[in-house]
């Protein structure tokens, strides 16, 4: 088969494209932050009183007054060598901050991603199969409401109910105060993960469920579905053989395309539950003008989102038989 060869060629093209894209992401975000009224020297010295000469020294050291082109070239050169600079608020290399925070976030994001995907798909199939019944309406109303609910508000409500009124979970902080990172038990950590994960899952269900429902109903109106019915197939078997097989792949593709929303949700949820992830770091970096950290996070978030898109693309182009056939023909 030519498929492996095509896939490799496709991947190669995608990776080259991504490197170019990433360079532009870096340049774009750098440009945006350079246009901003942030003064890195002021952020760095914060409230320490230093002389005018020292400020001038710092400015010269960081190249504050150099033209934008050479600043960009310097930054890009450093990034390509893997040097993202030093975080101004954590005072450690940006790379260390990101690696630590991103691991925590990945656990949160991927667990809620999988959970919401499975739950959403099942709800969508049930709703589509039972179209226009009370079950369908209940699922639809639930999804519409959740889709319109601001993530951070859901997080606030969940925090209020489970942490403040019921007192089941701590109101915040990654681990109990005063615990060293190596002494954190799995349970402690899980305890902090549950509420943010629950929030992200609840919010993530809506889109996939509604999509699956609509897609299934669309398939159920198709001619081959009608033909299958005419042959005497019915019930769950009909859905399984003609519905799910057609709906599953687009649904998974859609779920992979949701990495960007997932990251956005994580930013909000982490902020509210003070979960020590990348999103929370991004917000503190933005609020406290930590330019190197913010740029580093942008780069890593872009890589994360791109992985999702790449997988979705592969599913779309190589696994879906309809698209494969279409491409060969035209």
């Amino acid at each position, binding site marked *: 088969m030519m498929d492996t060869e095509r896939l490799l060629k496709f991947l190669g093209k995608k990776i080259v494209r991504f490197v170019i894209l990433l360079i532009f992401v870096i340049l774009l975000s750098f440009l945006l932050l350079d246009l901003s009224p942030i003064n890195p020297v002021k952020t760095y010295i914060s409230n320490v009183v230093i002389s005018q000469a020292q400020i001038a020294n710092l400015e010269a050291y960081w190249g504050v007054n150099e033209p934008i082109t050479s600043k960009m070239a310097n930054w890009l050169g450093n990034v390509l060598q893997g040097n993202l600079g030093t975080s101004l608020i954590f005072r450690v290399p940006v790379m260390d901050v990101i690696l630590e925070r991103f691991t925590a976030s990945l656990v949160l994001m991927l667990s809620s991603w999988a959970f919401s995907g499975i739950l959403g798909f099942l709800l969508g199939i049930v709703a589509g199969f039972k179209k226009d019944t009370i079950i369908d309406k209940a699922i639809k109303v639930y999804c519409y409401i959740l889709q319109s609910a601001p993530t951070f508000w859901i997080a*606030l409500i969940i925090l209020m109910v489970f942490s403040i009124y019921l007192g089941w979970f701590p109101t915040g902080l990654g681990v109990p105060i005063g615990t060293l990172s190596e002494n954190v038990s799995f349970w402690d950590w899980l305890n902090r993960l549950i509420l943010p994960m629950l929030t992200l899952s609840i919010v993530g269900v809506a889109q996939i469920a509604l999509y699956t429902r609509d897609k299934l109903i669309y398939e159920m109106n198709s001619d081959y579905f009608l033909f299958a019915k005419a042959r005497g197939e019915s019930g769950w078997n009909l859905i399984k053989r003609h519905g799910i097989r057609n709906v599953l792949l687009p649904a998974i593709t859609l779920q992979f395309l949701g990495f960007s929303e997932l990251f956005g949700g994580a930013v909000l949820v982490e902020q509210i539950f003070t979960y020590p992830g990348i999103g929370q770091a991004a917000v503190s970096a933005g609020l406290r003008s930590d330019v190197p950290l913010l740029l580093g996070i942008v780069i890593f978030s872009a890589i994360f989102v791109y992985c999702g898109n790449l997988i979705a693309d592969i599913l779309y182009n190589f696994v879906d038989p309809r698209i494969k056939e279409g491409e060969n023909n035209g």
Partner: protein
Amino acid sequence: MANSNNGPSIYNPFAKLNLRTKTLITIGLSVFILVIVVISSLFINSGDITTNFQAMNKPPSFEHFFGTDWMGRDMFTRTLKGLGLSVQIGAGASILSSLIAIVLSFIGSTNRFLDGVISWLVDLFLSIPHILLIILISISLGGGAFGVTVGVALTHWTSLTRVLRAEIKQIKTSDFVKLSERFGKSKLWIARKHILPLVTTQIIVGTILIFPHAIMHEASVTFLGFGLSPHEPAIGIILSESMKYLATGNWWLALFPGLSLLILVLLFDIAGENIKKILDPTSANE
């Protein structure tokens, strides 16, 4: 769908109406409520929201529907003002972004190279999570209403562009377009006669459906502290203030403003989906 109308309840006043009338009523009602919210918020002066320390932290009552905050301000008035603000920013952002989407998707449909450029641009803007990009743009424009509006507009054109691009691509592979091409019709003729009529629905619905996202992203970014300034009664500000008072049991500070925002977003969604139903010929005659 004949069997979907089985057993209409006589208690349901909507049962007598057909789907089209029902849809129109739904659209009318949701648009009516939205207009009421916007108009009434315009009549509220920020100065009217006075502090009243005799009525601090009051739970909801008939006098104060949404309760009062720690400065004795009426939360209902503040919420209403915030909703109006959200709609204004949402309107600006979604109109701007759908204009960008229309222009780009039609430019992209002219030839392969431009199509590549446009889809690359979409990829570029989609490659950074929306919230981060809005934060970046907002920071670079110095925050405030302007920063948020531009930030939201520059991040939300991608979905509509993708939809239009895919739609146009699909229409171009259809038999009637191929037939027209064989007949020697120009690209412009095909775009005008075959493509535009089929995507008008997508454009109108797309613009309305950007609204909810725009409003929500504005509120989120403001909540995180990158959007509107803290003295403006935006929903994001109200909710981020309420976080400090959650532990003391002032649940109404978070519940009602958030719920109103949810309802606002929901109304836009309902209006958009129903307009889609009316405009889409495949479902309009159900």
